[in-house]
């Protein structure tokens, strides 16, 4: 097996003492950056690049460190989701849904440990996929044209009902709001300004990091202020020590495997990415487990699925980057820029011409994940201790970090004001029990969905039939329709059955 031989060479590089040390530093810094609300993997890697140059690191070492930062940030995002109900970055959004309820039930340590394990499994599955399937998958991704992408995004929205589905009307309303926000900015297909009010900062639309931090973090603070006005703070979250038994690990194992595969596929498609990966894994898992689970109320599988999904997608996003030289996300764009500065020409020949570097990255990915798992389990105790800080001290600190994080991305006071506005809106929506996740989803997927629909229309002179013009798009439409209809049919049957029991 030539592949194994090449991978072993990669490991040889990755396991030297110096490289190992930088991988460790990368993992640690990455986890920290990922955990901070606002800062995600792209920022983490961008922050570390100058350091790599300042230290004069050789190419392999620099790449190993940056890959570790990338994986670390994907792991770190879950920490604030679980402990504070504030996603550290956008793919960690889905982890809030079950992670935070678990923490409130005193199972924060368990949630953190299990999600670290799920992240590891998801990443491992995807890395194996990357090793053996990368060249084939890269060609598959090329078969996605505008119509196929549009069908894919419709599929994502079709499964939306499964997310926070107490009241489907409110979910649809929230998604609609997200889509509406997504239309703001200069319209790429015509050059027209939409809802920009001639404000320069709105020309490129609304940054979803600003929206996420506002909707989740600021609204959390407002809720807290309201709940404790003048009075003594509410009862602290109780913390049970970490208890991990084999049964709970076995429970999340199939979930993590499925999440890893789905995330990987989402990551391979440029533009879809980690958020879609974690979202689809969560909704699918909820469907599979069905009424036997208690998703949304602290089901361990509800944290395993999105975490495996987004870590799988992180590795999957390396497929188009390494095989085609095309970055599917902001983070891989930064990594690619780094590769280029080491004399690597991006393009379809990268895998053959620069095999040593490519395999070095893959080996670093595996190594980084093992390190992260080893690093994260003992750190659980420290993270959980965060919760022993009374909320009246903790929340202001978190808010401060959120302000710094958002300011660091764009250095714009306008964004800070915008974030507060989103916070107020988030507070009102939470009061009205309108779910926040579909808003972000609409904002994330809306622009791509709109762009692809309009491209289909442009190419085929407004012929709507071309939306299902290829077998691939027909397949995607079928899955989307099934995703919409099946719960409607099966739901009552299931409920009837439960009623009989």
């Amino acid at each position, binding site marked *: 097996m030539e592949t194994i031989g090449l991978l072993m060479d990669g490991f040889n590089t990755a396991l030297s003492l110096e490289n190992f040390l930088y991988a460790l530093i990368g993992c640690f810094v990455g986890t920290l950056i990922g955990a901070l609300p606002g800062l995600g993997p*792209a*920022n983490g*890697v*961008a922050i570390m*690049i*100058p350091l790599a*140059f300042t230290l004069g690191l050789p190419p392999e070492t620099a790449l190993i460190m940056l890959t570790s930062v990338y994986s670390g940030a994907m792991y770190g995002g879950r920490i604030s989701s679980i402990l504070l109900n504030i996603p550290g970055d956008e793919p960690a959004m889905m982890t809030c849904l079950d992670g935070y309820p678990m923490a409130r039930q005193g199972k924060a340590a368990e949630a953190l440990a299990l999600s670290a394990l799920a992240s590891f499994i998801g990443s491992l599955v995807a890395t194996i996929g990357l090793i053996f399937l990368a060249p084939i998958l890269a060609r598959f*991704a*090329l*078969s*996605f*044209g*505008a119509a196929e992408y549009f069908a894919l995004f419709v599929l994502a929205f079709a499964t939306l009902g499964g997310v926070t589905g107490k009241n489907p009307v409110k979910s649809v309303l929230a998604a609609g709001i997200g889509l509406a926000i997504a239309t703001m900015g*200069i*319209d*790429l*297909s*015509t*050059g027209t300004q939409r809802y920009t009010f*001639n404000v*320069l*900062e709105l*020309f*490129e639309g609304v*940054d979803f990091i600003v929206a996420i931090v506002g909707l989740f973090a600021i609204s959390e603070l407002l809720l807290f202020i309201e709940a404790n006005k003048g009075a003594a703070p509410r009862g602290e979250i109780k913390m049970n020590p970490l208890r991990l038994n084999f049964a709970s690990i076995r429970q999340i194992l199939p979930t993590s495997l499925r999440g890893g595969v789905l995330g990987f596929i989402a990551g391979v498609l*440029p*533009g879809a990415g980690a958020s879609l990966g974690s979202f689809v894994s969560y909704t699918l898992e909820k469907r599979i487990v069905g009424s036997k689970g208690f998703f949304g109320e602290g089901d361990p599988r509800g944290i395993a699925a999105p975490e495996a999904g987004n870590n799988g997608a992180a590795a999957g996003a390396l497929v*188009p980057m390494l095989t*085609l*030289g*095309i*970055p599917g996300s*902001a983070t891989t*764009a*930064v990594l*690619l*820029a780094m590769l*280029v*500065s080491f*004399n*690597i*020409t*991006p*393009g*379809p*020949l*990268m895998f053959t011409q620069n095999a040593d570097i490519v395999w070095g990255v893959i080996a670093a990915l595996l190594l980084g994940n093992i390190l992260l798992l080893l690093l994260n389990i003992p750190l659980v105790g420290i993270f959980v201790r965060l919760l022993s800080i009374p909320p009246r001290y903790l929340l202001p600190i978190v808010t401060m970090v959120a302000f710094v994080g958002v300011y660091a*991305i*764009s*250095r*714009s006071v306008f964004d800070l004001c915008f974030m507060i506005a989103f916070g107020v809106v988030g507070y009102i929506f939470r009061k009205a029990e309108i779910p926040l996740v579909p808003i972000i989803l609409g904002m994330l997927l809306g622009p791509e969905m709109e*762009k692809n629909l309009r*491209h289909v229309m*442009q*190419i085929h*002179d407004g012929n709507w039939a071309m939306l299902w013009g290829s077998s691939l798009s027909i397949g995607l439409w079928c899955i989307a329709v099934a995703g919409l209809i099946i719960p409607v049919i099966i739901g009552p049957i299931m409920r009837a059955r439960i009623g009989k029991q």
Partner: protein
Amino acid sequence: MKIKTKLAVATASLIIGLTSTLGIAAEPLITGKVDCIAPAGPGGGWDFTCRSIGRLLNNFSNGEITVQTLNMPGAGGGVGFAHMITKRRNDSKVLAAASTATTARLAQNQFPGMNSGMVRWVGAIGTDPGIIAVNRESEIDSLATLIKKLKEDPSSVTFAGASAIGGWDHLKILMTAHSAGVSDLKRIKYLSYNNGGTAVTQVVGGHIDVLVGVASSSKGFIESGDLRPLAVLGHSHLSPPLDNIPTSFELGLDVEASNWRGFYMPKEVSEEEYQWWVSNLKAASQTDEWKRTMVQNGLEPFSLFGEEFDQFVNKQVESLANISKEIGIIK
């Protein structure tokens, strides 16, 4: 002080004969932390420009100057431009990355209330030539065939590019068609993708007919045979091994569309400070390190500095404004 002297000697020896009146040798005018504003997120062309010039200046000054890249996304560079003319008006320790995308937006008044005369243009250090390419199985076998098809029916061919409608990639194909005498330019189907990479995959995957892009992002696919290049939009050939692609001028079309990478700085800095940047950027761009970086990134040499560059930019804005009016993008 040792390092300082060393730097002074190095700078002096590099710029001797160019600017003899400045007397930089005595004490370097600008030291310490310098900001380079990349008016977009991490990973794009401006980000690259800032990060590579940062590394160059740092090595070149033996660590006397450390360049910090500030990503300032928004309004296609407009937020960074506005920041420069309002908050940094007389700051001599700041540069901002720019390219043809900046001049195209300035030409079309997409930065409201701002124009190219509000900053000082320091210099360009390289360029990414425009390129037109098709899928390897495409029936369009030459630029002539493409033009012929467009003349028969402007909407019979689809184009993919990275910029928005009216942006640089769109202008490239409109300029080409215009100079070939194609009428009814508004009917040309140009599809905008957010980044060059996606545009390339759509053409390689056979979903779109023609790619209008830059050499750097299509190079790998041309070498692997997935893309067939039709023309380089300019006077000179690309570097080997892609030096066999014909230029637009060889094919009889008067189109020059290459995306330069350069910098501007605030308007109200002293002449001395401006000249310091001009000569140092120039010297840094002549190092072997930068030449290597250019080759790796598919950039071609292009150097224009100081007043000459300032004039070039203002002229480009003017001519892009004229073209945009002529082809109906602005009124």
